[in-house]
């Protein structure tokens, strides 16, 4: 379960001017074992909310209580050091997450899942965004997180990889859940039960993801 209480977040400029709140007084309880889809316009604060949930960033006011293991935001960018190879990056993360003696097993799993061939031993900066996302996605699956956080990551990749990815998630149903941001509504409808709709810094919870998508459409085409 993830509890979000009175959460406020804004990004202040370096010259000291105060910007508007990106997220304003967010109160949410995300229950265990429920897949949640996050919708909203570009810049509505979806990625910011994911960053706060994953603990990558800290809120200005309020708090996020994580009573379970939460992944980092799996996305198109970030999480990898450009000058290191895919293998070195995976090794680093495996060690950080406390892989201990399992580091080699984790590397083998990710190499197999991401299926990058010889590119696995090339620097990350030579990767395409799709290859990066595949690696990031495979890496996150190597650990038993209770909640996976995905920022547009599942929609990437070719047909075979997409099938592999959603199969991997369906295998995890019952043990782990998902919080995803995606503009591909088919994926949201297929994987999620509940939805969160972000608008003007406010978050609205919908027990059915279809209602969240409907509310979002009403904003887009009134």
């Amino acid at each position, binding site marked *: 379960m993830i509890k979000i209480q009175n959460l406020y977040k804004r990004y202040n400029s370096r010259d000291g001017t105060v910007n508007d709140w990106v997220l304003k007084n967010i109160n949410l309880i995300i229950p265990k074992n429920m897949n949640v889809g996050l919708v909203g316009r570009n810049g509505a604060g979806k990625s910011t909310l994911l960053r706060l949930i994953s603990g990558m960033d800290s809120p200005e006011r309020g708090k996020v209580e994580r009573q379970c293991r939460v992944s980092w935001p799996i996305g198109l960018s970030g999480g990898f050091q450009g000058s290191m190879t895919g293998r070195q990056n995976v090794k680093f993360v495996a060690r950080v*997450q406390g892989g201990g003696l399992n580091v080699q097993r984790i590397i083998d799993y990710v190499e197999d899942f991401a299926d990058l061939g010889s590119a696995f031993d090339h620097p990350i900066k030579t990767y395409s965004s799709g290859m990066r996302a595949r690696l990031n996605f495979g890496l996150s699956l190597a650990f038993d997180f209770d909640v996976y956080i995905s920022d547009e990551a599942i929609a990437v990749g070719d047909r075979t990889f997409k099938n592999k990815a959603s199969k991997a998630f369906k295998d995890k149903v019952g043990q782990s859940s998902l919080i995803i941001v995606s503009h591909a509504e088919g994926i949201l409808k297929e994987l999620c039960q509940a939805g969160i709709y972000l608008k003007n810094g406010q978050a609205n919870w919908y027990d059915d993801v279809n209602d969240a998508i409907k509310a979002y459409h009403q904003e887009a085409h009134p």
Partner: protein
Amino acid sequence: MGTMQTRTSWQVTRSVWFAMFMREAVTRTTTDRLGWFWMIAEPVAMIAILVIIRGFIDGGKLIMGASFVPWMITGMMGFYLVRDGMSRSQGAINANRALFAYRQVQPVDPVLVRVFLEGMLRTFVFLLFVLGGLLLGLDIFPDNALFALFGWISLWTLGLGLGLVISVTGTLVPETAKIINMISFPLLIISGVIMPLHILPHYLLKYLMFNPIAHGLELLRLGFFSSYKVVHGTSEIYLWLCILALNALGLLMQLRFKDRLKAQ
């Protein structure tokens, strides 16, 4: 896959340091192909030039209780230890920015790891120089090895304190990097690496001895040459007050600006 129980903060930090150390060690020794070469060539070139200059001005007689070349090797190695602590931590946070995506990794981690790694490399190079010097017949075997070690560690922690502060200012205000690079050479001179400080008039020395590096170098030399006359005003107490103050300030700044360092 990975069997993962809840870990204590200390366990998390330790695994981050281990992972970061392995990563930095690999990058430091493989991507920078001439890194190893310069680490040895820079002091050798510096010493060679100064020995030649010394032939003209004969500065060696001004040092009391130690011969010139060993005196300079110890000073230069000690100075580089501090300088690298500063310069390598400047870029530490930006170079590892992508890794802050994992909430376990904090901005202070790459700084600590880099200073540690750099110090280990410098220690190794220093030992090589001592060994090489002994083979060449120089009088560079430490008379009081424990005291020399104390001086070395003092300089190392001084570099750590400066590194902690500079990594914050250098990341938030990129202009500081230019200033640090600019003062690096004058600092070499006013710390008494190539020219003994006691030849300077008292009114000048009074101000130069505010520089903690000079204190550290004198103490390191005293560990090597027991008959060495340190510069008037050298004090372990002052040195360690500076070290503790800088480390405390650096850690406080890391804590205070944690979010801005991550977000930058």
